């Protein structure tokens, strides 16, 4: 058994710094590169791409990234784990194999985790007793069933572990939890048992620290962010994991950013609910058990983690069509910038009313004044504000209402309050709104499948 392994986070979401995984591989020693590409919105986008072209539906940054890092990863035996397979992990694996062939890399094994996509078997699942009611509202899935665009089960670490056991150099999954990507190599390398919930929780929490990329190594830090050095070359976090479940969070020497008690603790508080019950497919981790020790030199030790048995359910995320939305904006300058923006809002509302359009929601915001903190925003001298951007948004069930709204923004420049600018880029176009339906499904109804493809 290895004495320790280094797991590097290469991506916090699809759209994160393109070069981050490259630098993780090149700027120091690591054993694993893990990359989270999937936000909920990503799955429906990928599903649409796959509907148009059956060879698509995965994070298309991956093949080009592989071209840059595969030779080094193969040479240094760095394994790569990512959920960027989206709704088409096989196509993603095939694309990687193609790149490997072009590069002349031989003996490459790509593990693929399948079985999370249950869109085509929803009826069967329901007939077998899965209710799939909305976890938050309790509503029946029947209310949205004919509008469903994608439906995926969140798998945990164990299917990835199986792929690693079968010799995979790269593991491509569909909807796997962000935390499972980091936990899996620890289970595999240290032989952690399925019922050692404290160890599984330790790896899970390390995964939570890594899953948002540099958000634990100085990015988006609300403490004394101004003292953080070299954001431009920020180092992404690395988990140095030990068999006893202790983990040191660090980053490569010479990179920017900071790993400290505060930067790690802030990330631990990100997007959690009840800290004693952080539920994943692998375990239920207790965030109140975590001990953090700042060792200095961008090293923070995490230890003492405890947790409990996993639940009998997987989480399912369905995406479904929820109408259309659009936003338009105009900027008003001094004098009386806010008064003008508010007058423009009223004019626009009246014009939309006269058009007899039907919106589910209409919203006006005043950027530069109170768009983010709303009622908590500091009161300013309204007559003296330098400028205010009016951001006006609508959402409707029908495309036409939203499209018609898009034609009402620019005319305000010549037909409303003065000293207005900032209309560029054409009329706001309706974009399809995709909503999410979180549900639970008994684990026994779904079986992950692991396949190995070889170059």
């Amino acid at each position, binding site marked *: 058994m290895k004495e320790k392994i280094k797991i590097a986070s290469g991506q916090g979401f699809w759209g994160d710094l393109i070069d981050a995984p490259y630098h993780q591989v090149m700027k120091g020693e690591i054993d694993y590169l893990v990359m989270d590409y999937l936000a*909920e*919105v990503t799955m429906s986008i990928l599903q649409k791409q796959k509907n148009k072209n059956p060879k698509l539906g995965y994070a298309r940054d991956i093949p080009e990234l592989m071209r840059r890092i595969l030779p080094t990863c193969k040479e240094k035996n760095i394994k790569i784990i990512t959920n960027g397979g989206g709704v088409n992990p096989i196509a993603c694996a095939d694309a990687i194999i193609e790149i490997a062939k072009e590069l002349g890399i031989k003996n490459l094994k790509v593990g693929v985790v399948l079985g999370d996509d249950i869109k085509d078997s929803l009826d069967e699942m329901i007939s077998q007793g899965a209710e799939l009611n909305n976890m*938050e509202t309790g509503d029946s899935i029947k209310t949205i069933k004919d509008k469903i665009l994608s439906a995926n089960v969140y798998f945990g670490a164990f299917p990835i572990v199986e792929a690693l056991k079968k010799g995979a150099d790269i593991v491509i999954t569909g909807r796997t939890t962000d935390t499972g990507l980091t936990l899996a190599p620890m289970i595999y390398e240290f032989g952690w048992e399925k019922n050692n919930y404290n160890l599984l929780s330790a790896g899970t929490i390390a995964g939570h620290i890594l899953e948002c990329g540099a958000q634990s190594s100085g990015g*988006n*830090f*609300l*403490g004394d962010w101004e003292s953080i050095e070299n954001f431009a070359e920020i180092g992404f976090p690395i988990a140095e994991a030990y068999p006893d479940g202790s983990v040191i969070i660090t980053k490569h020497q010479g990179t920017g950013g900071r790993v400290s008690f*505060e930067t790690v*603790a*802030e*990330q*631990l*508080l*990100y*997007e*959690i*609910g*009840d*800290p*004693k019950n952080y539920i994943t497919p692998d375990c239920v981790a207790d*965030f*109140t*058990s*975590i*001990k*953090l020790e700042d060792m200095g030199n961008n090293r923070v030790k995490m230890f003492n983690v405890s947790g409990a048995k996993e639940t009998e359910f997987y989480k399912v995320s369905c995406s479904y069509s*929820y109408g259309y*939305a659009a*936003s338009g904006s105009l900027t008003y300058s001094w004098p009386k910038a806010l008064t003008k923006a508010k007058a423009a809002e009223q004019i626009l509302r009246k014009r939309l009313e006269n058009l007899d359009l039907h919106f589910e*929601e209409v*919203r006006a*915001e005043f*950027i530069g004044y109170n*768009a*983010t*903190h*709303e*009622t*908590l925003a500091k009161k300013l001298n309204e007559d003296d504000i330098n400028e205010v951007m009016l*951001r006006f*948004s*609508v*959402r409707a069930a029908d495309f036409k209402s939203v499209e018609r709204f898009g034609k009402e923004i620019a005319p305000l420049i010549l037909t409303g309050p003065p000293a207005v600018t900032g209309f560029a880029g054409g009329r706001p176009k309706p974009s399809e*709104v*995709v*909503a*999410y339906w*979180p549900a639970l499904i008994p684990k026994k109804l779904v079986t992950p499948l692991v396949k190995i493809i070889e170059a």
Partner: protein
Amino acid sequence: MKIKLIDIAHGRSGDKGDAANVGILAYDDNGYQIIKKYLTVDRVKKHFEGICFGEVERFELPNLRALNFLLNNTLGGGGTISLKHDAQGKTLAAALLRMEIDTGE
């Protein structure tokens, strides 16, 4: 004595469906005692009046000198449906740090 929350704590916020999660972390043990005592559900609910329209849930993480709040019914329907500029509640931790605490001492 009046204490500005931003002087004794930092934080991070994000979305969980239509709820915002707001984590507040004190810089030291003394600060944690202050936030634990004064950042009650009622005070936080009142602070976010007109922003949070649902129940406020509060959780303690003494090991991180932190409190976690869930502000239900806050994000205008949640991530993709919401028309809000800050649909994911990313700026709400900073909004809570605007609070001033009167310790009465």
